[in-house]
Protein backbone atom coordinates (compact mmCIF):
# COMPACT_ATOMS: atom_id res chain seq x y z
CA UNK A 1 0.00 0.00 0.00
CA UNK A 2 1.08 3.54 -0.70
CA UNK A 3 0.51 5.20 2.63
CA UNK A 4 1.07 8.92 3.11
CA UNK A 5 0.92 11.05 6.24
CA UNK A 6 0.52 14.82 6.12
CA UNK A 7 1.93 16.30 9.29
CA UNK A 8 2.76 19.62 10.89
CA UNK A 9 5.38 20.83 13.31
CA UNK A 10 3.69 22.67 16.18
CA UNK A 11 4.48 24.27 19.51
CA UNK A 12 4.56 21.85 22.39
CA UNK A 13 1.17 21.97 24.14
CA UNK A 14 2.95 22.92 27.37
CA UNK A 15 4.22 26.18 25.83
CA UNK A 16 2.85 29.53 26.93
CA UNK A 17 2.13 31.86 24.04
CA UNK A 18 3.79 35.27 23.80
CA UNK A 19 3.12 37.86 21.15
CA UNK A 20 5.36 40.69 19.99
CA UNK A 21 4.42 43.09 17.21
CA UNK A 22 1.53 40.90 16.23
CA UNK A 23 3.70 37.81 15.78
CA UNK A 24 3.95 34.72 17.95
CA UNK A 25 7.34 34.67 19.69
CA UNK A 26 9.06 31.34 19.14
CA UNK A 27 12.41 32.01 20.82
CA UNK A 28 13.37 28.88 22.66
CA UNK A 29 9.97 27.28 22.21
CA UNK A 30 9.82 23.50 22.19
CA UNK A 31 8.35 21.98 19.05
CA UNK A 32 6.67 18.64 18.54
CA UNK A 33 4.80 16.73 15.88
CA UNK A 34 1.22 17.98 16.15
CA UNK A 35 -0.28 15.42 18.59
CA UNK A 36 -3.14 14.51 16.24
CA UNK A 37 -0.64 13.95 13.40
CA UNK A 38 1.26 11.62 15.71
CA UNK A 39 -1.79 9.34 15.80
CA UNK A 40 -1.75 9.47 11.99
CA UNK A 41 1.93 8.47 11.85
CA UNK A 42 1.34 5.58 14.26
CA UNK A 43 -1.70 4.35 12.32
CA UNK A 44 0.24 4.54 9.05
CA UNK A 45 3.05 2.41 10.48
CA UNK A 46 0.56 -0.17 11.78
CA UNK A 47 -1.18 -0.30 8.39
CA UNK A 48 2.12 -0.87 6.62
CA UNK A 49 3.13 -3.60 9.06
CA UNK A 50 -0.19 -5.33 8.42
CA UNK A 51 -0.62 -4.80 4.68
CA UNK A 52 2.91 -4.10 3.43
CA UNK A 53 3.95 -1.10 1.40
CA UNK A 54 5.58 2.14 2.34
CA UNK A 55 4.89 5.09 4.63
CA UNK A 56 5.86 8.55 3.39
CA UNK A 57 5.51 11.51 5.75
CA UNK A 58 5.04 14.91 4.14
CA UNK A 59 5.15 18.34 5.71
CA UNK A 60 4.92 21.91 4.47
CA UNK A 61 7.06 24.32 6.44
CA UNK A 62 10.56 25.62 6.92
CA UNK A 63 13.81 23.69 7.20
CA UNK A 64 13.42 23.37 10.97
CA UNK A 65 10.63 20.85 10.33
CA UNK A 66 13.30 18.30 9.38
CA UNK A 67 13.57 17.48 13.09
CA UNK A 68 9.91 16.40 13.35
CA UNK A 69 10.16 14.48 10.07
CA UNK A 70 13.16 12.60 11.49
CA UNK A 71 11.10 11.80 14.57
CA UNK A 72 8.41 10.28 12.34
CA UNK A 73 11.10 8.30 10.51
CA UNK A 74 12.45 7.13 13.86
CA UNK A 75 8.96 5.94 14.81
CA UNK A 76 9.05 3.79 11.68
CA UNK A 77 8.02 5.80 8.60
CA UNK A 78 10.07 4.94 5.49
CA UNK A 79 10.53 8.24 3.68
CA UNK A 80 10.04 11.92 4.37
CA UNK A 81 9.31 14.94 2.23
CA UNK A 82 9.77 18.54 3.32
CA UNK A 83 8.13 21.14 1.11
CA UNK A 84 9.51 24.58 1.88
CA UNK A 85 6.91 27.32 1.65
CA UNK A 86 8.98 30.34 2.69
CA UNK A 87 8.21 32.03 -0.65
CA UNK A 88 4.53 32.23 0.26
CA UNK A 89 4.18 35.42 2.24
CA UNK A 90 0.51 35.45 3.18
CA UNK A 91 -0.18 31.76 3.49
CA UNK A 92 -3.33 30.17 4.84
CA UNK A 93 -5.02 26.76 4.64
CA UNK A 94 -5.75 27.31 0.96
CA UNK A 95 -2.00 27.74 0.42
CA UNK A 96 -1.16 24.48 2.19
CA UNK A 97 -3.89 22.67 0.27
CA UNK A 98 -2.55 24.00 -3.02
CA UNK A 99 1.04 23.02 -2.24
CA UNK A 100 0.11 19.53 -1.03
CA UNK A 101 -2.26 19.16 -3.97
CA UNK A 102 0.56 19.86 -6.40
CA UNK A 103 2.79 17.37 -4.61
CA UNK A 104 0.19 14.58 -4.68
CA UNK A 105 -0.91 15.27 -8.26
CA UNK A 106 1.32 12.58 -9.79
CA UNK A 107 1.42 10.21 -6.80
CA UNK A 108 -0.31 6.85 -6.60
CA UNK A 109 -2.08 6.97 -3.28
CA UNK A 110 -4.04 4.34 -1.38
CA UNK A 111 -4.51 6.29 1.80
CA UNK A 112 -3.51 9.67 3.19
CA UNK A 113 -3.61 10.10 6.96
CA UNK A 114 -3.45 13.34 8.88
CA UNK A 115 -4.48 14.83 12.20
CA UNK A 116 -8.04 15.93 12.81
CA UNK A 117 -6.79 19.38 13.72
CA UNK A 118 -3.48 21.07 14.51
CA UNK A 119 -3.10 22.36 18.04
CA UNK A 120 -1.75 25.71 16.84
CA UNK A 121 -4.01 27.07 14.08
CA UNK A 122 -6.82 24.74 15.03
CA UNK A 123 -8.82 25.03 11.82
CA UNK A 124 -8.85 21.39 10.73
CA UNK A 125 -9.20 22.48 7.11
CA UNK A 126 -6.24 21.05 5.25
CA UNK A 127 -7.30 17.37 5.25
CA UNK A 128 -10.77 17.79 3.69
CA UNK A 129 -9.46 20.54 1.39
CA UNK A 130 -6.72 18.28 0.05
CA UNK A 131 -9.11 15.34 -0.45
CA UNK A 132 -11.41 17.60 -2.47
CA UNK A 133 -8.55 18.87 -4.62
CA UNK A 134 -7.41 15.30 -5.30
CA UNK A 135 -10.97 14.14 -5.98
CA UNK A 136 -10.89 11.47 -3.28
CA UNK A 137 -13.19 10.79 -0.31
CA UNK A 138 -12.42 11.88 3.20
CA UNK A 139 -13.51 10.91 6.68
CA UNK A 140 -12.55 13.19 9.59
CA UNK A 141 -12.26 12.51 13.31
CA UNK A 142 -11.59 8.79 13.03
CA UNK A 143 -11.08 6.63 16.14
CA UNK A 144 -10.85 3.21 14.44
CA UNK A 145 -9.63 2.17 11.02
CA UNK A 146 -9.59 -1.19 9.25
CA UNK A 147 -8.67 -1.87 5.65
CA UNK A 148 -9.74 -4.90 3.68
CA UNK A 149 -10.27 -5.61 -0.02
CA UNK A 150 -9.73 -2.04 -1.13
CA UNK A 151 -12.21 -0.68 1.38
CA UNK A 152 -11.77 1.18 4.64
CA UNK A 153 -14.17 0.63 7.50
CA UNK A 154 -13.85 3.42 10.01
CA UNK A 155 -15.41 4.59 13.22
CA UNK A 156 -15.94 8.34 13.26
CA UNK A 157 -16.48 10.32 16.45
CA UNK A 158 -19.43 12.65 15.89
CA UNK A 159 -19.66 14.79 18.99
CA UNK A 160 -19.92 11.77 21.25
CA UNK A 161 -21.94 9.59 18.86
CA UNK A 162 -20.14 6.99 16.76
CA UNK A 163 -20.68 6.43 13.06
CA UNK A 164 -19.44 3.32 11.34
CA UNK A 165 -18.56 4.28 7.78
CA UNK A 166 -17.46 2.25 4.80
CA UNK A 167 -15.50 3.95 2.04
CA UNK A 168 -13.50 2.84 -1.00
CA UNK A 169 -9.79 3.57 -1.27
CA UNK A 170 -8.17 5.92 -2.02
CA UNK A 171 -9.31 7.93 0.95
CA UNK A 172 -8.03 10.67 3.23
CA UNK A 173 -8.53 10.00 6.94
CA UNK A 174 -7.99 12.41 9.81
CA UNK A 175 -7.11 10.98 13.20
CA UNK A 176 -8.97 11.74 16.40
CA UNK A 177 -7.63 11.04 19.87
CA UNK A 178 -8.27 7.41 20.81
CA UNK A 179 -7.28 6.01 17.39
CA UNK A 180 -4.13 4.45 18.86
CA UNK A 181 -1.30 4.97 21.30
CA UNK A 182 1.65 6.49 19.40
CA UNK A 183 4.93 4.73 20.06
CA UNK A 184 8.08 6.45 21.23
CA UNK A 185 10.99 6.24 18.81
CA UNK A 186 13.40 3.50 19.87
CA UNK A 187 17.14 4.09 19.97
CA UNK A 188 17.79 1.82 16.94
CA UNK A 189 14.86 3.60 15.27
CA UNK A 190 16.53 6.95 15.84
CA UNK A 191 19.83 5.64 14.43
CA UNK A 192 18.10 4.21 11.35
CA UNK A 193 16.12 7.40 10.79
CA UNK A 194 19.32 9.33 10.12
CA UNK A 195 19.90 7.26 6.99
CA UNK A 196 16.35 7.20 5.69
CA UNK A 197 15.60 9.34 2.63
CA UNK A 198 14.41 12.90 3.28
CA UNK A 199 13.59 14.87 0.16
CA UNK A 200 13.39 18.65 0.22
CA UNK A 201 11.24 20.41 -2.37
CA UNK A 202 10.25 24.00 -3.01
CA UNK A 203 7.46 25.59 -5.01
CA UNK A 204 9.54 25.54 -8.22
CA UNK A 205 9.90 21.78 -7.97
CA UNK A 206 6.10 21.54 -7.88
CA UNK A 207 5.66 23.97 -10.80
CA UNK A 208 3.90 26.42 -8.51
CA UNK A 209 4.24 30.19 -8.48
CA UNK A 210 3.98 32.15 -5.25
CA UNK A 211 0.72 33.67 -6.46
CA UNK A 212 -0.81 30.21 -6.99
CA UNK A 213 -0.41 29.49 -3.30
CA UNK A 214 -1.26 32.92 -1.95
CA UNK A 215 -3.80 32.77 0.88
CA UNK A 216 -7.45 33.72 0.55
CA UNK A 217 -7.59 35.12 4.06
CA UNK A 218 -5.29 37.46 5.91
CA UNK A 219 -4.43 37.63 9.60
CA UNK A 220 -4.43 41.29 10.62
CA UNK A 221 -3.93 40.96 14.35
CA UNK A 222 -2.91 38.45 17.00
CA UNK A 223 -3.44 39.09 20.69
CA UNK A 224 -3.55 37.40 24.05
CA UNK A 225 -6.81 37.17 25.96
CA UNK A 226 -6.98 39.49 28.98
CA UNK A 227 -5.36 37.77 31.93
CA UNK A 228 -7.95 36.32 34.21
CA UNK A 229 -7.84 37.67 37.72
CA UNK A 230 -7.76 35.06 40.42
CA UNK A 231 -11.21 34.82 41.87
CA UNK A 232 -12.68 34.35 45.26
CA UNK A 233 -11.71 31.40 47.41
CA UNK A 234 -14.59 30.80 49.78
CA UNK A 235 -14.02 30.07 53.43
CA UNK A 236 -15.86 28.99 56.54
CA UNK A 237 -17.73 25.75 57.22
CA UNK A 238 -18.22 23.61 54.13
CA UNK A 239 -22.02 23.90 54.30
CA UNK A 240 -21.73 27.68 54.37
CA UNK A 241 -19.27 27.66 51.45
CA UNK A 242 -21.64 25.59 49.36
CA UNK A 243 -24.55 27.89 50.19
CA UNK A 244 -22.48 30.95 49.39
CA UNK A 245 -21.27 29.50 46.09
CA UNK A 246 -24.77 28.69 44.88
CA UNK A 247 -26.01 32.10 45.90
CA UNK A 248 -23.06 33.85 44.17
CA UNK A 249 -23.67 31.91 40.97
CA UNK A 250 -27.30 32.97 41.09
CA UNK A 251 -27.09 36.60 42.12
CA UNK A 252 -23.57 37.80 41.23
CA UNK A 253 -22.53 35.67 38.24
CA UNK A 254 -26.12 35.08 37.14
CA UNK A 255 -25.31 31.85 35.37
CA UNK A 256 -27.95 29.62 36.97
Amino acid at each position, binding site marked *: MNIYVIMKRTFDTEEKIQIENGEIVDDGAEYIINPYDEYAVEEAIQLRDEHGGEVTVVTVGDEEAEKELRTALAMGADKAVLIEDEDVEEGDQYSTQTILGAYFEDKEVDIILGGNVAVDG*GSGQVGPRLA*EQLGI*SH*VTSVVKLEIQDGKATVEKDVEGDMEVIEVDLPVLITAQQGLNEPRYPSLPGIMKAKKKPLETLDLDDLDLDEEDAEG*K*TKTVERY*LPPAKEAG*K*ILDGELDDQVNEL*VSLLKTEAKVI
Partner: protein
Amino acid sequence: MSKKVLVIGEVRDGDFRNVSFEATAAAREVAADGEVVGVLLGENVSSLANELIYYGADRVLTVESDKLANYTPEGYAQAIQEVVDQEDPDGIILGHTAIGRDVAPKLAARFKSGLVSDAVSLEVAGDEVIFTRPIYSGKAFEKIVVQDGLTFATIRPNNIAALEKDESRSGEVASVQVDITDLKTVIKEVVKNTTSGVDLSEASVIVAGGRGLKDADNFKLLDELAEVLGGAVGASRGACDAEYCDYALQIGQTGKVVTPDLYIAVGISGAIQHVAGMSNSKVIVAINKDPEAEIFQIADYGIVGDLFDVVPKLTEEFKKVLV
Protein backbone atom coordinates in the same frame (compact mmCIF):
# COMPACT_ATOMS: atom_id res chain seq x y z
CA MET B 1 -22.31 47.29 0.55
CA SER B 2 -25.16 44.92 1.01
CA LYS B 3 -24.33 41.26 0.72
CA LYS B 4 -26.11 38.01 0.21
CA VAL B 5 -25.21 35.44 2.84
CA LEU B 6 -26.29 31.81 3.06
CA VAL B 7 -26.71 30.04 6.38
CA ILE B 8 -26.63 26.27 6.44
CA GLY B 9 -29.08 25.25 9.18
CA GLU B 10 -28.44 22.10 11.13
CA VAL B 11 -31.20 19.87 12.41
CA ARG B 12 -30.59 17.14 14.93
CA ASP B 13 -33.23 14.77 16.25
CA GLY B 14 -35.98 16.83 14.63
CA ASP B 15 -34.92 20.21 16.03
CA PHE B 16 -32.56 22.99 15.08
CA ARG B 17 -29.29 23.11 16.90
CA ASN B 18 -28.99 26.46 18.60
CA VAL B 19 -25.84 27.25 16.62
CA SER B 20 -28.02 27.53 13.51
CA PHE B 21 -29.76 30.55 15.02
CA GLU B 22 -26.39 31.96 16.10
CA ALA B 23 -25.11 31.52 12.53
CA THR B 24 -28.23 33.31 11.26
CA ALA B 25 -27.46 36.24 13.56
CA ALA B 26 -23.87 36.29 12.25
CA ALA B 27 -25.14 36.22 8.67
CA ARG B 28 -27.55 39.08 9.46
CA GLU B 29 -24.62 41.19 10.63
CA VAL B 30 -22.49 40.40 7.58
CA ALA B 31 -25.37 40.94 5.16
CA ALA B 32 -26.36 44.26 6.75
CA ASP B 33 -29.22 45.46 4.55
CA GLY B 34 -28.59 42.61 2.12
CA GLU B 35 -30.21 39.22 2.18
CA VAL B 36 -29.88 36.24 4.50
CA VAL B 37 -30.92 32.98 2.91
CA GLY B 38 -31.36 29.93 5.13
CA VAL B 39 -30.54 26.55 3.61
CA LEU B 40 -31.93 23.33 5.04
CA LEU B 41 -30.76 19.90 3.95
CA GLY B 42 -32.27 16.58 4.91
CA GLU B 43 -35.41 14.52 4.79
CA ASN B 44 -38.72 16.19 5.77
CA VAL B 45 -37.08 19.38 6.96
CA SER B 46 -39.25 21.99 5.24
CA SER B 47 -41.72 22.10 8.16
CA LEU B 48 -38.90 23.65 10.22
CA ALA B 49 -38.02 26.33 7.67
CA ASN B 50 -40.06 29.17 9.19
CA GLU B 51 -38.12 28.85 12.40
CA LEU B 52 -34.99 30.15 10.64
CA ILE B 53 -36.98 33.11 9.36
CA TYR B 54 -38.19 33.91 12.90
CA TYR B 55 -34.53 34.07 13.90
CA GLY B 56 -33.46 36.44 11.13
CA ALA B 57 -33.39 34.73 7.71
CA ASP B 58 -35.23 36.52 4.88
CA ARG B 59 -36.14 33.33 3.05
CA VAL B 60 -35.27 29.65 3.15
CA LEU B 61 -34.30 27.09 0.54
CA THR B 62 -34.75 23.41 1.30
CA VAL B 63 -33.06 20.51 -0.40
CA GLU B 64 -34.86 17.31 0.49
CA SER B 65 -33.70 13.81 -0.34
CA ASP B 66 -33.53 10.49 1.43
CA LYS B 67 -29.83 10.60 0.57
CA LEU B 68 -29.48 13.64 2.84
CA ALA B 69 -31.11 11.96 5.85
CA ASN B 70 -27.64 11.28 7.22
CA TYR B 71 -24.73 13.62 6.68
CA THR B 72 -22.18 12.57 4.09
CA PRO B 73 -19.53 14.95 2.71
CA GLU B 74 -20.43 14.20 -0.92
CA GLY B 75 -24.19 14.48 -0.44
CA TYR B 76 -24.03 17.76 1.44
CA ALA B 77 -21.39 19.20 -0.90
CA GLN B 78 -23.52 18.39 -3.97
CA ALA B 79 -26.61 19.96 -2.44
CA ILE B 80 -24.84 23.10 -1.22
CA GLN B 81 -22.97 23.49 -4.50
CA GLU B 82 -26.27 23.52 -6.40
CA VAL B 83 -27.67 26.19 -4.06
CA VAL B 84 -24.49 28.27 -4.37
CA ASP B 85 -24.59 28.05 -8.16
CA GLN B 86 -28.21 29.24 -8.15
CA GLU B 87 -27.84 31.99 -5.58
CA ASP B 88 -24.31 33.29 -6.20
CA PRO B 89 -23.87 34.45 -2.58
CA ASP B 90 -21.03 36.52 -1.11
CA GLY B 91 -20.69 34.37 1.96
CA ILE B 92 -21.73 31.10 3.56
CA ILE B 93 -21.91 30.58 7.31
CA LEU B 94 -22.15 27.24 9.09
CA GLY B 95 -21.85 26.12 12.69
CA HIS B 96 -18.42 24.85 13.73
CA THR B 97 -19.94 21.44 14.43
CA ALA B 98 -19.04 17.92 13.31
CA ILE B 99 -20.86 18.69 10.04
CA GLY B 100 -19.58 22.24 9.56
CA ARG B 101 -15.98 21.25 10.27
CA ASP B 102 -16.23 18.42 7.77
CA VAL B 103 -18.04 19.99 4.83
CA ALA B 104 -16.93 23.63 4.93
CA PRO B 105 -13.27 22.94 3.99
CA LYS B 106 -14.40 20.58 1.23
CA LEU B 107 -16.64 23.28 -0.23
CA ALA B 108 -14.04 26.00 0.26
CA ALA B 109 -11.59 23.89 -1.76
CA ARG B 110 -14.20 23.25 -4.43
CA PHE B 111 -14.84 26.98 -4.87
CA LYS B 112 -11.15 27.89 -4.37
CA SER B 113 -12.30 30.03 -1.46
CA GLY B 114 -11.10 31.19 1.89
CA LEU B 115 -12.62 29.73 5.04
CA VAL B 116 -12.50 31.18 8.53
CA SER B 117 -12.93 28.26 10.93
CA ASP B 118 -14.24 28.42 14.47
CA ALA B 119 -14.98 32.15 14.62
CA VAL B 120 -16.10 33.44 18.03
CA SER B 121 -17.06 36.94 16.94
CA LEU B 122 -17.16 39.16 13.90
CA GLU B 123 -17.28 42.83 13.05
CA VAL B 124 -18.15 44.60 9.85
CA ALA B 125 -15.91 47.55 8.93
CA GLY B 126 -17.02 49.14 5.69
CA ASP B 127 -16.67 46.53 3.00
CA GLU B 128 -14.57 44.17 5.11
CA VAL B 129 -15.64 41.50 7.52
CA ILE B 130 -13.20 40.82 10.32
CA PHE B 131 -13.53 37.52 12.17
CA THR B 132 -11.97 36.74 15.54
CA ARG B 133 -10.96 33.16 16.23
CA PRO B 134 -8.93 31.38 18.89
CA ILE B 135 -5.50 29.97 18.10
CA TYR B 136 -3.46 27.60 20.27
CA SER B 137 -6.80 26.42 21.65
CA GLY B 138 -7.61 29.81 23.09
CA LYS B 139 -4.17 30.66 24.50
CA ALA B 140 -4.30 33.50 21.94
CA PHE B 141 -6.66 34.97 19.37
CA GLU B 142 -6.33 36.22 15.81
CA LYS B 143 -8.36 38.56 13.67
CA ILE B 144 -8.82 37.49 10.10
CA VAL B 145 -9.91 39.52 7.11
CA VAL B 146 -11.22 37.74 4.11
CA GLN B 147 -9.57 39.00 0.96
CA ASP B 148 -12.11 38.67 -1.83
CA GLY B 149 -14.55 36.35 -3.53
CA LEU B 150 -16.94 33.89 -1.96
CA THR B 151 -16.11 33.38 1.68
CA PHE B 152 -16.96 30.60 4.07
CA ALA B 153 -17.04 30.82 7.85
CA THR B 154 -17.86 28.37 10.62
CA ILE B 155 -18.85 29.83 13.96
CA ARG B 156 -18.24 28.27 17.34
CA PRO B 157 -21.42 27.37 19.22
CA ASN B 158 -22.39 29.43 22.26
CA ASN B 159 -20.39 32.57 21.36
CA ILE B 160 -22.40 34.74 18.99
CA ALA B 161 -25.82 35.59 20.42
CA ALA B 162 -28.86 34.51 18.43
CA LEU B 163 -31.41 37.22 17.62
CA GLU B 164 -34.61 37.22 19.57
CA LYS B 165 -37.23 34.97 18.04
CA ASP B 166 -39.76 37.08 16.15
CA GLU B 167 -42.75 35.07 14.97
CA SER B 168 -44.16 38.04 13.10
CA ARG B 169 -41.38 37.68 10.50
CA SER B 170 -42.30 35.90 7.30
CA GLY B 171 -40.53 34.94 4.11
CA GLU B 172 -40.57 32.60 1.17
CA VAL B 173 -39.77 28.93 1.62
CA ALA B 174 -38.81 27.24 -1.64
CA SER B 175 -37.43 23.85 -2.45
CA VAL B 176 -34.42 23.14 -4.64
CA GLN B 177 -34.25 19.85 -6.49
CA VAL B 178 -30.84 18.22 -6.44
CA ASP B 179 -30.15 14.78 -7.80
CA ILE B 180 -27.73 13.44 -5.22
CA THR B 181 -25.51 10.84 -6.83
CA ASP B 182 -22.35 8.94 -6.21
CA LEU B 183 -22.17 8.75 -2.43
CA LYS B 184 -18.81 7.17 -1.81
CA THR B 185 -18.99 7.15 1.94
CA VAL B 186 -21.66 4.84 3.28
CA ILE B 187 -22.83 5.07 6.87
CA LYS B 188 -23.37 1.53 8.08
CA GLU B 189 -24.38 2.27 11.63
CA VAL B 190 -24.79 5.12 14.10
CA VAL B 191 -24.12 4.34 17.74
CA LYS B 192 -25.71 7.01 19.91
CA ASN B 193 -23.84 8.00 23.02
CA THR B 194 -26.07 7.14 25.93
CA THR B 195 -24.08 8.65 28.76
CA SER B 196 -25.02 12.27 28.29
CA GLY B 197 -27.83 13.99 26.48
CA VAL B 198 -26.08 17.34 26.27
CA ASP B 199 -23.35 17.92 23.71
CA LEU B 200 -20.15 19.32 25.26
CA SER B 201 -19.57 21.95 22.57
CA GLU B 202 -23.03 23.43 23.02
CA ALA B 203 -23.56 22.88 26.74
CA SER B 204 -24.16 26.02 28.77
CA VAL B 205 -22.98 24.24 31.92
CA ILE B 206 -20.10 21.77 32.09
CA VAL B 207 -19.01 19.75 35.11
CA ALA B 208 -15.54 18.36 34.47
CA GLY B 209 -13.55 15.86 36.48
CA GLY B 210 -9.84 15.19 36.79
CA ARG B 211 -7.54 12.69 38.39
CA GLY B 212 -8.93 13.71 41.76
CA LEU B 213 -12.00 11.59 40.97
CA LYS B 214 -9.75 8.54 41.55
CA ASP B 215 -12.07 6.08 39.82
CA ALA B 216 -14.41 5.74 36.86
CA ASP B 217 -17.35 4.99 39.18
CA ASN B 218 -16.92 8.30 40.94
CA PHE B 219 -17.86 10.15 37.75
CA LYS B 220 -21.42 9.34 38.85
CA LEU B 221 -21.08 12.23 41.30
CA LEU B 222 -20.45 14.54 38.36
CA ASP B 223 -23.30 13.03 36.34
CA GLU B 224 -25.67 13.84 39.19
CA LEU B 225 -24.45 17.41 39.51
CA ALA B 226 -24.58 17.94 35.73
CA GLU B 227 -28.08 16.56 35.56
CA VAL B 228 -29.38 19.01 38.16
CA LEU B 229 -27.83 21.87 36.19
CA GLY B 230 -28.92 20.56 32.78
CA GLY B 231 -25.26 20.39 31.82
CA ALA B 232 -22.76 18.01 30.30
CA VAL B 233 -19.87 16.11 31.88
CA GLY B 234 -16.30 16.60 30.66
CA ALA B 235 -12.88 15.48 31.83
CA SER B 236 -9.21 16.41 31.94
CA ARG B 237 -6.60 14.53 29.98
CA GLY B 238 -5.39 12.98 33.21
CA ALA B 239 -8.80 11.47 33.89
CA CYS B 240 -9.02 10.12 30.32
CA ASP B 241 -5.49 8.72 30.38
CA ALA B 242 -6.34 6.99 33.67
CA GLU B 243 -9.36 5.47 31.87
CA TYR B 244 -11.88 7.04 34.23
CA CYS B 245 -13.84 8.09 31.14
CA ASP B 246 -13.89 8.12 27.36
CA TYR B 247 -11.59 10.40 25.32
CA ALA B 248 -14.72 11.88 23.75
CA LEU B 249 -15.13 13.81 27.03
CA GLN B 250 -11.62 15.26 27.10
CA ILE B 251 -11.39 19.04 27.33
CA GLY B 252 -8.09 20.73 26.56
CA GLN B 253 -5.62 21.59 23.85
CA THR B 254 -5.90 17.99 22.72
CA GLY B 255 -9.59 17.31 23.07
CA LYS B 256 -12.50 19.73 22.99
CA VAL B 257 -12.32 23.46 23.47
CA VAL B 258 -15.39 24.68 25.30
CA THR B 259 -16.89 28.02 26.32
CA PRO B 260 -19.92 27.35 28.53
CA ASP B 261 -21.57 29.93 30.79
CA LEU B 262 -20.55 27.89 33.82
CA TYR B 263 -17.60 25.50 34.11
CA ILE B 264 -17.19 23.52 37.31
CA ALA B 265 -13.72 21.94 37.54
CA VAL B 266 -13.70 19.10 40.04
CA GLY B 267 -10.43 17.54 41.15
CA ILE B 268 -8.62 19.14 38.23
CA SER B 269 -5.18 20.62 38.91
CA GLY B 270 -5.27 23.08 36.01
CA ALA B 271 -2.41 22.06 33.72
CA ILE B 272 -1.89 24.56 30.90
CA GLN B 273 -3.00 21.86 28.45
CA HIS B 274 -6.42 21.66 30.12
CA VAL B 275 -6.78 25.36 30.81
CA ALA B 276 -6.35 26.11 27.09
CA GLY B 277 -9.55 24.19 26.45
CA MET B 278 -11.78 25.91 29.02
CA SER B 279 -10.32 29.22 30.23
CA ASN B 280 -12.66 31.25 28.03
CA SER B 281 -15.69 29.90 29.88
CA LYS B 282 -17.77 32.76 31.27
CA VAL B 283 -17.69 31.67 34.91
CA ILE B 284 -15.31 29.07 36.34
CA VAL B 285 -15.74 27.28 39.65
CA ALA B 286 -12.90 25.15 40.98
CA ILE B 287 -13.17 22.47 43.62
CA ASN B 288 -9.85 21.01 44.72
CA LYS B 289 -8.31 19.88 47.98
CA ASP B 290 -4.96 21.44 47.08
CA PRO B 291 -5.12 25.20 47.78
CA GLU B 292 -2.04 25.68 45.56
CA ALA B 293 -3.68 24.04 42.52
CA GLU B 294 -3.18 26.12 39.36
CA ILE B 295 -6.88 25.93 38.57
CA PHE B 296 -7.61 28.47 41.34
CA GLN B 297 -5.57 31.06 39.38
CA ILE B 298 -8.23 31.19 36.69
CA ALA B 299 -11.32 30.33 38.74
CA ASP B 300 -13.92 32.96 39.58
CA TYR B 301 -14.96 31.01 42.67
CA GLY B 302 -13.08 28.31 44.48
CA ILE B 303 -13.78 25.84 47.21
CA VAL B 304 -10.76 24.21 48.82
CA GLY B 305 -11.95 20.86 50.03
CA ASP B 306 -12.44 17.18 49.41
CA LEU B 307 -14.55 16.81 46.30
CA PHE B 308 -16.24 13.74 47.76
CA ASP B 309 -17.67 16.00 50.50
CA VAL B 310 -18.24 19.09 48.37
CA VAL B 311 -19.89 17.74 45.23
CA PRO B 312 -22.82 15.88 46.86
CA LYS B 313 -23.58 18.90 49.04
CA LEU B 314 -23.42 21.16 46.01
CA THR B 315 -25.79 18.90 44.08
CA GLU B 316 -28.26 19.02 46.98
CA GLU B 317 -28.03 22.79 47.28
CA PHE B 318 -28.58 23.32 43.53
CA LYS B 319 -31.58 20.99 43.71
CA LYS B 320 -33.12 23.19 46.42
CA VAL B 321 -32.50 26.42 44.52
CA LEU B 322 -33.40 25.25 41.05
CA VAL B 323 -36.63 23.45 41.81
